[in-house]
């Protein structure tokens, strides 16, 4: 008999709805596990004090014969740059460490309406800027598979929480790989939906044309359910697509016959760790053996994705983060002689090094004399990256490859070299630039220093074709068992 922390969201909701188990029992079981293990990992920044009350309300509704919804009593963790009403949204920054969200993110509101219980807020790189969760002002999160290694980032806390079985589902945000790269490093499923599929209302903005909220899970079916619930038009976000949401759960178990999978040569070249590459190839071959047709494709501008991304993302960030001025909310430096000094000192005190570096870089790229050479140029290359994918999807339904160029790296290994850290997103950033959906799927392990380290397989679809991603994820889960191993007993 498996324990509650091993259960999927769907299993928990079924048991709670059938009143075989109360929502409060589920919550207490997971909180006990967090209390035992999160001291070492640091996945959570804060637990939700109201969670027990929320679970009691679910149980009370069931006692009255009401159905709380398909996520009845499922504890969900939320990255700390997504608003949960009246709770702190720190963004991993000193600037916002006492900031209480005055409203709730649409994604969170929709999960709650489906019966979810908010478990707590998870650690992240400050303002989601990083690939290791080491840029958090509140200390790093550790990888549950090897505590000397990074969990990836920026949504490292959410990925580690799902991998460590603190919760079946956690939300992250992805601007250049911040869901998929930590999902790969922690051996769980992580999806960045199509730009506009999930409302960004209540997600603290980093790069507005790139940001998306998405789920981490250990089961493909859980991700399909949660994504369907969160998706859809939102009057609070004009970029949320009005297009109807597909029934993602319907494709689970459909098999791979008739699917054409493209393997990008540029995703499998010498820049990628050879052992990791061969593990990814094994997973792709398994999908081929199960009925998918495998074809080779080219994405010729891939090497320009990171330079393009770091111009576009920092330019947008320099504008978005102008709001942190110490006036309406957040940290304010004391004893400034005038308002300009207050702005400058508040931002100096409140922001960490990486955030300052990116704001300065973005401001530089947008400043007179640099705009055409950098920002305008990057927006044109962005078109070329998008065209690469448009051409690829004329030849195949999905593009597959590794999620990351390396296995999880050691904590501290890349903190002094910004460019080395940026290259962790070499295979993920182009999707954000093109607006495409992509997921990282657990594709096995490689043993190093006596530790099993997870490998991620990235599955990329055309816009609004999340259904194909879930179809492949469910098939691979069926073939390989997916995230059935736990890093913590």
């Amino acid at each position: 008999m498996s324990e509650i922390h091993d259960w999927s969201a769907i299993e928990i909701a079924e048991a709670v709805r059938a009143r075989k188990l109360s929502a409060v029992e589920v919550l207490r079981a997971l909180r006990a596990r967090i209390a035992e293990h999160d001291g070492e990992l640091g996945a959570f920044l804060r637990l939700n004090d109201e969670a027990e009350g929320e679970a009691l309300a679910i149980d009370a509704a069931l006692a009255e014969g009401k159905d709380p919804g398909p996520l009845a009593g499922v504890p969900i963790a939320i990255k700390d740059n997504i608003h949960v009403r009246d709770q702190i949204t720190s963004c991993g920054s000193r600037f916002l460490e006492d900031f209480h969200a005055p409203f709730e993110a649409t994604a969170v509101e929709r999960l709650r309406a489906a019966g979810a219980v908010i478990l707590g807020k998870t650690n992240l790189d400050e303002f989601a800027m990083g690939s290791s969760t080491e840029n958090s002002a509140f200390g790093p999160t550790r990888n549950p598979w090897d505590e000397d290694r990074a969990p990836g980032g920026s949504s490292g806390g959410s990925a580690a929480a799902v991998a460590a079985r603190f919760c079946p589902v956690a939300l992250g945000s992805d601007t250049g790989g911040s869901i998929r790269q930590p999902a790969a490093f922690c051996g769980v499923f992580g999806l960045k939906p199509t730009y506009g599929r999930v409302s960004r209302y209540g997600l603290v903005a980093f790069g507005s044309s790139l940001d998306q909220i998405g789920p981490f899970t250990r089961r493909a079916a859980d991700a399909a359910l949660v994504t369907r619930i969160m998706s859809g038009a939102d009057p609070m976000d004009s970029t949320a697509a009005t297009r109807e949401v597909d029934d993602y759960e319907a494709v689970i178990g459909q098999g791979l016959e008739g699917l054409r999978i493209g393997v990008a040569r540029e995703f499998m070249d010498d820049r990628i760790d050879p052992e990791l590459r061969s593990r990814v190839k094994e997973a792709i071959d398994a999908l081929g053996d199960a009925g998918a047709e495998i074809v080779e494709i080219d994405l010729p501008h891939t090497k320009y994705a990171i330079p393009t991304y770091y111009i576009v993302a920092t330019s947008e960030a320099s504008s978005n983060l102008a709001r942190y001025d110490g006036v309406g909310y957040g940290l304010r430096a004391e004893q400034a002689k005038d308002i300009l000094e207050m702005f400058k000192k508040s931002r100096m005190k409140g922001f960490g090094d990486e955030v300052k570096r990116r704001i300065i870089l973005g401001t530089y790229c947008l400043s007179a004399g640099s705009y055409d050479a950098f920002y305008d140029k990057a927006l044109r290359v962005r078109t070329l990256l998008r065209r690469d994918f448009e051409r690829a999807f004329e030849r195949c339904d999905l593009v597959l490859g590794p999620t990351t160029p390396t296995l999880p790296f050691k904590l501290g290994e890349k903190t002094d070299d910004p460019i080395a850290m940026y290259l962790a997103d070499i295979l993920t950033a182009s999707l954000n630039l093109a607006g495409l959906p992509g997921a990282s799927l657990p594709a096995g392990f490689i043993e190093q220093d006596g530790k099993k380290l997870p490998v991620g397989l990235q599955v990329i679809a055309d816009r609004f074709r999340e259904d194909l991603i879930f179809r492949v994820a469910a098939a691979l889960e069926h073939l390989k068992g997916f995230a059935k191993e736990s890093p913590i007993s």
Partner: protein
Amino acid sequence: MVNPDEIRHVAHLARIEVESDKLPVYADQIARIIDFVSQLDELETDDVPVMMHAGADDDVFREDEPGTCLDRAIALRGAADHDDEQIRVPKTL
């Protein structure tokens, strides 16, 4: 190509105070990043249109009707210094 004085100027535009001893560090890092991103110059892009956004091509419209908005007391509670109605700041002129 990027010197400490330039960083001081850009940091001023970005309204961030940078300690003097940090200026050369940022100058060196930003110079290396600029050098790295300059590989985009290898591409001929004069005839390629810019892509500002990855979203839907259609604008979303709604009626301009008054509705409820954030309560003033809630909006003020995050400010470091405020009275019952307004946020207080140091002198602006």
